[in-house]
């Protein structure tokens, strides 16, 4: 990260939205701006209050080309999307958006919330970061707004200016923050073992759980494996101390921190027919060397030794795994038992007795 010192000398800052883009409904613009400020107030003591008249610390406007006395200009569609000025008087703290861009609240065009959160980083005293995962990276990259946009690099940067004592209001901030594992509706995209750890994946985040001594660590997936996308859908550890990660019709093989050369590959190379577009969950049974891939209400079985799909599949999951009747979000094997996840629920399954032992909450591994 980089900083342009000094930051604001106060923690209560005001902002004013001078005009709106016609691309979005006014209330959507207001909400995007408010949520963009909340990204920073969640991790610092800063408080942002909107005013409707006069001069605010952060004046926000949509402009085109050369505009007023601003020392910078815009360049029509694409190219430069917005700019901002570091804390100070006059233009200090002000943020301008290029009205010639297509502003949206989704993934089409340019997402106003993401660009605003980036420019507010400048208005608070951050300069650009050369960390591609950082919100303060200069180039635009769409990240689903439902995921927390600040990387550890951004958080270190802003806290180096304002300290790290968040002024958390009583109710939870409406802006997405890093997922809370003990929420009652907690669910996971994928789960896998990694030697003696269990890795839980959701969106951009992963948790490393050490079942034997109940430690839990939260990380960004990209901290370990920058080359992996977020939103991994399935993962399993095979017999060769490797992990396979699946998303859509692609999969990656990871050994330690490295992605093996030649990946991602298509899941068709594993023997799935063309019609299979994604994998819901996968687990390798360490006792048999067979990997089960769960897709919808069926599963395929793959022989890790022969490196080929077994004949006679797919089969109905519920027939061979009594009690597992819903789509499988994630599954892993621990001490001989399988743990099947669907939404906030988890089932402990004994493959020897071939029956569900008990139903527990998905986040039972997190000492909630």
């Amino acid at each position: 990260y980089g900083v342009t010192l000094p930051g604001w000398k106060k923690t209560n800052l005001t902002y004013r939205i001078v005009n709106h883009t016609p691309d979005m409904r006014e209330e959507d613009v207001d909400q995007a701006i408010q949520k963009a400020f909340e990204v920073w107030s969640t991790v610092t003591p800063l408080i942002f209050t909107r005013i409707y008249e006069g001069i605010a610390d952060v004046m926000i406007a949509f402009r085109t080309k050369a505009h007023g006395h601003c020392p910078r200009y815009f360049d029509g569609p694409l190219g430069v999307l917005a700019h901002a000025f570091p804390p100070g008087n006059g233009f200090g703290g002000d943020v301008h958006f290029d009205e010639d861009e297509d502003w949206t609240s989704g993934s089409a065009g340019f997402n106003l919330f993401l660009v605003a959160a980036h420019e507010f980083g400048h208005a608070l005293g951050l300069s650009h970061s050369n960390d591609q995962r950082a919100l303060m990276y200069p180039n635009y990259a769409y990240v689903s707004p439902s995921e927390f946009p600040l990387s550890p690099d951004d958080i270190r940067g802003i806290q180096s200016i304002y300290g790290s004592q968040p002024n958390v209001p009583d109710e939870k901030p409406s802006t997405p923050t890093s997922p809370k594992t003990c929420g009652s509706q907690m669910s996971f995209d994928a789960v896998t073992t990694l030697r003696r750890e269990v890795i839980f994946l959701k969106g951009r985040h992963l948790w490393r759980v050490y079942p034997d001594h109940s430690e839990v660590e939260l990380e960004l997936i990209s901290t370990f494996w920058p080359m992996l996308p977020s939103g991994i859908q399935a993962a399993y550890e095979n017999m060769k101390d490797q992990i396979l990660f699946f998303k859509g019709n692609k999969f990656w093989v990871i050994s330690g921190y490295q992605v093996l050369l030649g990946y991602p590959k298509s899941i068709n190379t594993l023997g799935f027919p063309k019609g299979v577009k994604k994998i819901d969950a996968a687990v390798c049974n360490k006792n048999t060397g067979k990997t089960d891939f769960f897709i919808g209400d069926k599963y395929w079985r793959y022989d890790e030794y022969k490196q080929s799909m077994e004949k006679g599949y797919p089969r109905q999951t519920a027939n061979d795994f009594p009690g597992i009747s819903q789509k499988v979000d994630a599954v892993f094997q621990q001490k001989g038992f399988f743990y099947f996840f669907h939404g906030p629920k988890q089932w402990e399954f004994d493959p020897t007795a071939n029956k569900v032992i008990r139903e527990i909450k998905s986040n039972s591994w997190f000492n909630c």
Partner: protein
Amino acid sequence: LPVHPENDNHKEDAKLVQDYLNKFYAIEPDPNQLGWKAKAESTAEKLQKMQQFFGLKVTGKPDSETLEVMKKPRCGVPDVGL
């Protein structure tokens, strides 16, 4: 005539590089600066700085990968400080 399309491309690329470096890798004049101004950097020096920032091969030359990064939508704040 006829103008060779490739030459046109080169001209466009050269303009893109010059505009990009002037906009994001030129040290903005500090209004409070007293005394001598720093020596202006050459285009190659600025290009190297940009390639280093984006983790590209630092060649000082506008290769295709560098041009590709320059064409991406981005923030208008310079990458180098005041």
